[in-house]
Structure formats: C-alpha cells, structure tokens
C-alpha cells in the first residue's frame, strides 16, 4: 500500500534559489530565475565541472536566501542525472555538512523535499538543504549523441534543462508549508523508446496521482495547481487521457513544467526535461507565487525515468516513478 504521509508540524520552505543556462533564461520563466549563466561552460573547462559549479552556487545561494549560514545547515539532500550522481557529491565536497545522495531521475526534487520534510518534521534535523540540477550537454553526452553530430531529433524528444534549483526546509522562519508527501511506486507499462519519455512516465504519474487522491480523499478541484515535472507536451496529454479513463478530469489547473518551460520558437519539440526542469520552475516561479498567495495549495508531482544506457541497449523497457508533495501558502 502506498501511504500518504501527513506532516504534523508542516515544515516550511524558508529559502529557494534557481540558476539556469542562457537558453533557459530566454524561456517562459526567464524573469523568475535568480541567476542566468552567460554560457553553458560557466567559466569551467568541462560541462561536468560546470554542472557541479551550478549546484555549488545553488547551495550557497539558497543558504543566503534563507538568511542562514553554512554552519546552520544540518544536512543536505541532493541528486542529479550523471552516473554515480557525481555533480551532487562533488558539490557537497566543498561544504562542511553531511550529505545524503538521492536518485529519482527527474523526480529528484520532490524526492529530496519529501525526505527532508520528514527529517525536519520528526525533529531530527533543523535546517535541511535540498538541491537538484541537470545540464543539457552532460546529459546529451551520457544518454545520447555528441553535441556536434548532425542528426535530427525525433518529434517526441525533449530538451534537457541546464539549471539547478535548491531550497531550505525548516520549522523556523516564514514560507510555504509542506503538508503531505506521497512517495511513488516504480511503474513500467512497457515503453522502450528512449526518445519518448513522456509516454513512459505518464503511467507513473497516473499511479501516484490516483494513490494520492484516494489516500487524502481529495480531487483535482482541491488544488489551485497540479504540476507535473517533465512529461512534456505528449506525456501531459497522455496523463490527461489516462486520468479521464479513471473518471478524473484534469482541467485548467493542471500544468507540466516541461511543456511550459520553453517558448515555441526555441524548437524543443515536446518541451523541456531533466532534473533541473521542475527544480528551477519550483524554486523560482512556484515559490514566488505561493509567497504572494496567488496559489494557496499546490500538488507538485514530478516524474522520473529510472533507466540507464546499459538497460536501454539490452532492450529493457523504461521503469518510472513519481513523487508527490503538497505545498500550501
């Protein structure tokens, strides 16, 4: 049974920070990000080092944003898309607090916030930093082809976001409250096309959404916004269909970060993806709208595809997951 955890003390998000690449800065959420990098290298020699530096800056930035100091942080929970989550671990190396690495692919932001709020709610930690990021060029090179190869992208493909988002969870301070957490099962409905992540992940979103609604006796109308991570154009349409089959109508209060991220002229086909996609939208636009009380209650449920290049080459299908958190203003 997948349970929904109702947090008794309702930890708050007392600080948030987002940093993105130049292309992302020109996207639909451009004006909300805290920092837009001038180029994808970020002054480093390799893209991997740039991704790491992005995470380091996001961690430093969020601690400042929460008006805390490094010594006030009890633990950091972070993850990214690179093998052995090196960006997070290497970023953690420069800070003097414990580090828990988590991996939920593109759902990592919700997973880390979920774990962090439980730690804080239980009284075991005071201030917890959550951080997630991804980089277009490192992800392309790990999962797909070299950047300069002259091939065409299939119409279902999505564009990995270069960006990192972070937040601080604590009981003390002001900010939106985290009230519920539903961790997701791993769901696989037999899609093996790596260029169609939306199609592979939509069933995982369906599963978590159904569980969450059933456990909490709520429905789509109880939330000002239901936000998935990077299902993209195709995946979010599929999710709407799948929920319709269950008798649940997702209306205009449903949105997907990946679908909304880039402008149409930026030619990203099915939209944005990557761990940085929902992390940067959540820690900029969403948090600001919650602080302004434009949104009162949000269901944030990013999905993640838990595949590797090896499993793909061996012909395996794509297992996916989806973690949901409820945030209230």
């Amino acid at each position, binding site marked *: 049974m997948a349970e929904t955890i109702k947090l008794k003390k309702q930890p708050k998000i007392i600080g948030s920070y987002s940093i993105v690449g130049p292309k992302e800065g020109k996207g639909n959420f451009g004006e909300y990000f805290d920092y837009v990098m001038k180029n994808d290298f970020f002054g480093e*020699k*390799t*893209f*991997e080092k740039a991704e790491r530096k992005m995470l380091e800056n996001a961690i430093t930035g969020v601690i400042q944003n929460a008006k805390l100091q490094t010594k006030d942080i009890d633990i950091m929970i972070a993850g990214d898309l690179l093998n052995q989550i090196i960006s997070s671990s290497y970023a953690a190396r420069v800070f003097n607090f414990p580090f828990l690495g988590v991996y939920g692919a593109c759902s990592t932001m919700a997973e880390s916030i979920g774990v962090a709020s439980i730690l804080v709610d239980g009284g075991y930690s005071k201030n917890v930093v959550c951080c997630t990021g991804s980089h277009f060029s490192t992800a392309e*090179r790990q999962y797909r*082809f*070299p*950047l*300069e*190869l*002259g*091939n*065409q*992208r*299939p*119409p*279902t493909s999505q564009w990995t976001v270069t960006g990192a988002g972070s937040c601080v969870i604590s009981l003390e301070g002001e900010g939106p409250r985290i009230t519920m957490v539903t961790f997701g099962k791993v769901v696989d*409905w*037999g*899609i093996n096309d790596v260029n*169609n992540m939306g*199609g592979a992940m939509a*069933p995982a979103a369906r599963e978590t959404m159904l569980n969450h609604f059933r456990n909490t006796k709520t429905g789509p109308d109880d939330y000002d916004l239901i936000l998935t991570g990077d299902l993209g154009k*195709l995946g979010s*349409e*599929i999710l709407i*269909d799948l929920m319709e089959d269950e008798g649940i109508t997702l209306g205009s209060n449903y949105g997907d970060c990946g679908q909304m991220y880039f402008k149409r002229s930026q030619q990203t086909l*099915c939209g944005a993806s990557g761990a940085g996609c929902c992390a940067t939208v959540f820690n900029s636009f969403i948090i600001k709208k919650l602080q302004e009380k434009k949104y009162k209650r949000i269901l944030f449920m990013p999905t993640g595809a838990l595949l590797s290049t090896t499993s793909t080459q061996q012909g395996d299908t794509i297992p996916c997951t989806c973690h949901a958190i409820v945030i209230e203003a």
Partner: protein
Amino acid sequence: MEDKKRNEAYNQYVSAKIPKTHAWPALFNSFWVGGLICVIGQGINDLLLLAFPMLSQQSAWALTLIALIFIASFLTGIGVYDQIGKFAGGGSIVPITGFSNSIASPSIEFKSEGIVYGICVKMFTIAGPVIVFGVASSMVVGLIYWIISLF
C-alpha cells in the same frame, strides 16, 4: 498476463498519439542538400583536373574526398555541420561528409577525457559500426568475386 495485455494496449495507444514526422518536406530537404554536397564534390574534382591537367582521374577523386572530409570536419569544429544536419537529415549524413562529422563530433566531445581514452577511444563510437560493416561486406563481395572468377 493482464499486465502484458495492458502494456500492449498502452503501447498501441501511445504510438497512435505520437506526433509524426512530415515525410515529404523532410525528404525534399534531404534530397537537395545531399545533391548540393555531391555537386560541390564534382566541382572540386573538375576544378582540380582543370588546374592540374597532369593529374590522373584516380588522384583527383582521392583529393576530392580529402577536401570534402576536411570541409565537413572544419564545419563540425565551428558548430555549423550539426545545424545543416538538423535541417537536412539523411541528406548530410549519407555522403562522406556525414562520415567525417560522425568521427569529428565525438573527438571534440570527449577531448575532456584525454587524448588516448577520450579522443582515440571514443572517435569511432558512431562511425565504428560503419567501418566494421564496410570491411565485412567487402570481404563477402570479394569472396563471391573470387568464386565467380574460378569458372
């Protein structure tokens, strides 16, 4: 069993929903860019023969290939060839310039892992299969040719 049925139904539903590539515009762009690359090649060949009348046709062909490979690698290096590829698809992959691009692009990409393990090892990640199949099929054709020549 039920899962299998559900997965099959879901896969069918998803493939019906996937946005389709518009075949005719893609084929058209492919055709004219591919054709243009061939015309450029022929042009280089003819100019070579015009400039150096002593040159044999065989040497002119070899020099033309070298020139095309160089141009494609150069365009890959300055980040132009992937733009052409995005537009032309197969039109810029099939000619020898595409082969050059498929070797130059991983070389640039994996420079960060060093010369031996980066550039030299990764250089053939995309072009490797082409070379293997090229050599293997030439052996098969050679064998058939030899058998026929026996009679």
